[in-house]
């Protein structure tokens, strides 16, 4: 069993080091830039099971659960430890959330945004570098800390190291001796641990023969909440051999080579794995998913989406078609970001597992 520090413990350590906390919304953002400016990122993916009353007071019921829950969480004091809120421009929902926070809710913490280009042409690279410079300036104003080029580079290399460890965990799932829930808890520790702690943790993960029971599945979607999902999947007689989750494998950025830190960060963000929120062509993505499934022996793909997540929904039909043609099965279900998974959704997953048995 691994011992992973809680978020509260990490906050305490961060404070002891004289650093600050940044609450960060999904999906892609420059971790190293935050760290170098003295902010430890703590990501907010929902969280599930908060009362959504406050969120509903600002966003219509057809807004995705991440936005409504995160807004509730903020207004209930859940982000009080944060000194800044960083909202990447991931989708129209997070765009709306950032804008409403800035213009209407006006939380105590400053709100910083970052716009991520949806292609990777030279114009996009140039713009993203400029956007990172702008964000750096804003962060420096908040923390009073302006890292040198060397410090920034050191932070980047540390994050690259952590990403390599994350990549190794994802690549060699079958050799990690952890049950699905623990395994994904480990991967998701990257959401709030400092890179150096994550590297240590990842290296200490027990190796050997990983669990090998039942129907091998791959999971896709934004975030697997609540994490009980994995217990249910195991009980049904399946296990998860690989992921295409926005919070996990879609953030396996390749280490860069540029010597300019901003160029290097921009390259990493634009060169990451295929992701509909980054505008990746659907068929290319479908091919990548199918080949990953073949590689790790997954028989079915469970697409576990947050209700009302448009970027994910548009890909579903063609993804399904492509996988079917490749002789693979796919199940698409949605969940509401509440604390429990609807019975009916579980039945569907169970039937999917029975079908693949």
């Amino acid at each position, binding site marked *: 069993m691994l011992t992973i520090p809680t978020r509260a413990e990490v906050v305490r350590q961060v404070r002891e080091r004289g650093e600050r906390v940044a609450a960060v919304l999904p999906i892609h953002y420059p971790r190293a830039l935050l760290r170098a400016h003295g902010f430890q990122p703590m990501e907010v993916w929902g969280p599930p099971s908060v009362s959504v009353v406050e969120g509903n007071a600002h966003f219509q019921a057809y807004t995705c659960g991440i936005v409504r829950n995160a807004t509730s969480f903020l207004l209930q004091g859940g982000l009080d430890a944060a000194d800044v809120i960083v909202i990447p421009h991931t989708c129209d929902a997070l765009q*709306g959330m950032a804008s409403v926070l800035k*213009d209407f809710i006006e939380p105590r913490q400053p709100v910083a945004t970052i716009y991520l280009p949806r*292609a990777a042409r030279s*114009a*996009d690279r140039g713009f993203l570098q400029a956007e990172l410079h*702008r964000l750096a300036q804003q962060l420096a104003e908040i923390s009073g800390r302006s890292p040198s080029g060397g410090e920034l580079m050191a932070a980047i290399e540390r994050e690259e190291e952590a990403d390599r460890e994350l990549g190794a965990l994802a690549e060699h799932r079958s050799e990690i001796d952890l049950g699905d829930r623990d395994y994904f808890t480990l991967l998701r520790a990257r959401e709030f641990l400092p890179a150096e702690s994550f590297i240590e943790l990842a290296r200490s993960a027990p190796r050997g023969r990983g669990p090998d029971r039942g129907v091998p599945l791959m999971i896709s979607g934004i975030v697997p909440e609540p994490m009980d999902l994995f217990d249910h999947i195991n009980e049904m007689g399946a296990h998860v051999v690989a992921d295409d989750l926005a919070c996990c494998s879609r953030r396996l950025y390749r280490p860069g080579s540029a010597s300019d830190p901003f160029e290097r960060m921009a390259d990493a963000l634009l060169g990451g794995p295929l992701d509909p929120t980054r505008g990746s062509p659907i068929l290319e993505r479908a091919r990548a998913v199918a080949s990953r499934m073949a590689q790790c022996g997954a028989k079915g793909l469970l697409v576990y989406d947050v209700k009302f997540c*448009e970027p994910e929904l*548009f890909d*579903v039909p063609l993804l399904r078609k492509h996988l079917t043609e490749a002789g693979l099965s796919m199940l698409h279900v949605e969940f509401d970001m509440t604390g429990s998974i609807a019975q009916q959704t579980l039945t569907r997953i169970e039937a999917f597992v029975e079908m693949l048995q």
Partner: protein
Amino acid sequence: MNPKSYLAYTLGYQLFGKSFLSWQRHSDERKLRAIRPAPDDPLNPPLVGTARMKELMSRHYLEGRYANGVRKVAWVTSGAPIEVLRALDFFLIYPENHAALCGARRHAEGLAVEAENAGYSRDICSYARTDIGAALSGRTPMGKLPRPDLLVCCTNICQTVLYWYRVLAAHFGVPLYVVDTPFLYEKVADHQLDYVLEQIEGLIPVAEKVAGRRVSRGRLQEIMEQGKDCAELWLEIMDRAQHRPSPITAFDGFINMGPIVDLRGEPETFAFYKELLREIDRRIEQGVGAIRDERKRVLWDNLPVWYKIGKLSRHLGAKGVNVIVSTYTYAWGELAPMMDASDPMRSAARVYLHPILNRSTGDKLRSMREMVARFQLDGAILHSDRSCKPYSLGQIDQRDNLANDLGVPAVLLEADHNDPRVYSDEQADARLDAFVETMEAA
């Protein structure tokens, strides 16, 4: 150019089609002029100019039928920088406008079902569903849409179009050019302008390659100027609603906005709006309002509910409520002052960064507050459009601000711009009636 297509184009569109449509317009005009509303109809006779709008749009789609093999075709988003494409003589299809026409003609649901049957969720934008359904089934009330040679998607209205055009790119197997426009949470910054400028310039070689010819900078400038003239004219029309009683309604705007979206800058579009403006000015001279008894003047925010335009205008009109302006129709004119033909590319970058949907929620509220003041409005209807997240997110706070800070009664109307299955007449009417009562009490 394919000689057979060219022949069909010349016969079907140039010779026969155009004259038939112009004959049909004359007959429509006669019919419109002859309309004598019933004594209990809350609306005054409709604008006769609408007949020309119908002619222009029908002609456009008729040409589309014959366009493949004669002109290069691009499918573009409503906020795409089309000047380059027009300068290269591309024939343009606006899937959003096509979906809206389907919606207004009550065909959207059937087409959306086609997309849903293929697995597209009911939670995605109903424009996207309508059009994907049309693309998959080949059905459209407009006869037939030409296949695209190029797709151009600009994210200045939403990210949805990016997902949607990726589906089209996979379906048609043609290149997709993305013009990505950073959302303006705050005032525009230089790096944002530079970025958009670089992408608009980057479109030139891509479009030239498809068109097989070079663009002339002179022609580009001319098109910019025509676009500006049209936008200014449209703005002038919208602004006529300042008169009391207002000679037009926001619903007139919705119905007549097709050309400013699809055919902006075309000389015939300009002529059409000139004529429409004259008709509106005649109403003003005669002191005739769009509705018989204008007691309250109201703002509409967001897209129209295409399949309920007539119903809503009568329901509200009967209560003396004239919905006179909308942020949506205004969006096609309000940026005219930003257009500067002497610096076409950079001013285009600026314009394409500034549509209302690419500006912050606070800025949108400012626009609404300005409209309330300028048009002397008594209330606001904010259509909370399930399908359009970027337009709708923020409305709860905007409404609270209008109602509580500004003291302007405002209501959130839950609906969907193109999907009648999520609309409930009873609930909508009840909400609107309560809203009218608050205005009357205010």
